[in-house]
């Protein structure tokens, strides 16, 4: 199966402790696509639920269109009944067979329902949907919708990218398009004391560890997904303990085990500045590849 992950497209899997699980080798809903800029970007595949929602909305829109046409036709029917009837039948045909295809092709993969549900149809290699693909996937809807979309549903369950038959033939996937905001500035806790360097050895935590701490702490601060402080401490405890061991930390042990977030914040403040005492270790710690790009 040519499906999910082509080896050359694998994400660089961290070889050390994989703390944040940002690793596409595991089963996930993300499909990687390599762009001409030689960058991997990922799309999150849309599951059946949001697609059914979009379908129902679209069905409502289609019915609405037909009702509107019927009303116009019944007015103009006074003058030319036969022509109006013919127009109605043709528009029925167009709405039945071409509503999805045309609106996906024209609106770049998003029908009205899909737009509301925040999903989009794209070619499976990340390109925007082409006219022919839009036609293929929506003509084959007829086969998929047999048995109340049973065939399409089974096909979606059997493929790793939730493709129904029409998607398979057209080579398309439906992906989520969730609006993402720029994460806030990393929490800079000016008031927090850095670790006393005399209490540590020369170990330097990796950038990944630091940004993990950053994410945990900023999530704790973020009002939307606020974590209660005891939960935050217990989430932070393992990492705090490991770090204190690696640092061979001689300071306040109570802080490590009971106020783990505070300890992590101190670690963060200590090492986040970048100009670290021991440059040699820094180099070996980070840097799997491609650092030169960072000095922009």
């Amino acid at each position, binding site marked *: 199966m040519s499906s999910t992950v082509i080896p050359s497209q694998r994400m660089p899997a961290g070889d050390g402790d994989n703390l944040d699980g940002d690793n596409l080798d595991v089963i996930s809903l993300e499909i990687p696509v390599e762009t001409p*800029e030689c*960058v991997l970007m990922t799309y999150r595949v849309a599951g059946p639920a949001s697609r059914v929602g979009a379908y129902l909305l679209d069905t409502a829109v289609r019915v609405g269109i037909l009702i509107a046409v019927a009303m116009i036709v019944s007015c103009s029917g006074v003058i030319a009944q*036969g022509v109006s009837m013919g127009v109605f039948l043709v528009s029925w*045909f167009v709405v039945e067979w071409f509503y999805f295809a045309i609106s996906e092709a024209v609106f770049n993969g998003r029908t009205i329902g899909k737009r509301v549900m925040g999903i989009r149809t794209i070619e499976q290699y990340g390109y925007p949907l082409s006219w022919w693909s839009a036609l293929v996937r929506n*003509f084959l809807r007829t086969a998929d919708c047999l048995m109340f979309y049973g065939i399409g549903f089974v096909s979606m369950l059997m493929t790793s990218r939730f493709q129904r038959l029409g998607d398979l033939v057209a080579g398309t996937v439906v992906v989520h398009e969730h609006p993402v905001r720029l*994460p806030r500035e990393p929490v800079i806790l000016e008031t927090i004391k850095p670790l006393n360097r005399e209490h540590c050895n020369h170990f330097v935590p990796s950038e990944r560890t630091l940004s*993990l701490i950053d994410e945990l702490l900023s999530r704790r601060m973020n009002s939307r997904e606020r974590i209660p402080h005891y939960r935050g401490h217990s989430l932070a405890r393992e990492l705090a303990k490991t770090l204190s061991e690696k640092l061979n930390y001689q300071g306040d042990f109570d802080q490590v085990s009971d106020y783990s977030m505070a300890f992590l914040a101190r670690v963060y403040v200590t090492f986040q500045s970048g100009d670290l005492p021991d440059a040699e270790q820094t180099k070996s710690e980070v840097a799997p590849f491609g650092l030169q790009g960072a000095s922009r």
Partner: protein
Amino acid sequence: MNKRKYVQQRRSSWRQFRDLIDRAESRRERKRMSPVDLADYSRLLREVSNDLAIVRAREWGRELADYLNSLVTRGYNNYYTSPPGNVRKFVQFIIFGFPVLMRKNWPFMLAGWCLFFIPFIVSWGVIQTDSSLAVRILPAEHLEQMEQMYETPLYGGDQVGDDEEALDSESSEDEPSDSAVSQEDQMVADGYLDERSTMAGFYINNNVGIALRSFAIGILLGIGTCYVLLYNGLVLGASFGYTLAVGHGDNLLSFAVTHGSFELTAIAISGGAGLMLGDAIIHRRNRTLFESQKVRGLDAIKIALGAGVMLVVAAFIEAFWSPAPIDHTIKYVVGITSWVFVYAWMFLAGRGRVPA
């Protein structure tokens, strides 16, 4: 360079890129983008792609990577849009590319043709020689109705020509032709063209729908397609055979001969396209199932769409020309010409051109 400095430094570029994407996504704004904007867009797309790679490589956290990823995917999707469809190309495809494509996939076309026309001819021949056999294929009331219908020429008096034609009436579930008949009855009083327009709409809705449906279910190993083709072939052949045996052949044939050239051929073709889909599952030719589907599916859909266009043409002929009060001899001449035309077009058009 640490994460914080990096974000501070790049943030303004990201904002700028996001604004550009927003503009590119709205149709109206896109047209107003200046060349400078476009150059910026292209530069920023590459820059942000680079940022994404850096953030991933340095493992600066999922949130940041997600944010950049969403910028890149949106930007990419707008940047590499497929060329817009264009009417001239489409017309060219239908006239030249479509016959070329059919000839390229001739085994399937031939199979579809045989599956439809062989039962058609056989049941026609058999039932014309022994009309008592017709009851085995068609229900008696249907036969009676048909006999009445073609007793007089279709354009005569109160007779309203409904087609036995309706390839479908039985096989298509959602649109029984009866409704169209009753609608039609109400408007007998109206003018000829007016009344005929309804039928044009009906034929388009019904026949093209059947053709596309028989194409689409071809993906289920082609079984459904075979069924539709065989069924319609048998039923139509039986209707023709019976009507001729009863002695109303002239009325029926003069009606059906012209649009039949497009209609029957197109049904066979769309069935053939459905068989292509089914075959792509069975014979993959060293491709994976999905690749095979994708490669062959495009040809199949193009052929099916061409067949759809043929059926639309047929619908207009059937609605406006076939039932017209014109001398039967002329109708036969035109009808036979159209058969010759359709097959000459299929076999000859677009030779020497690259398949569309």
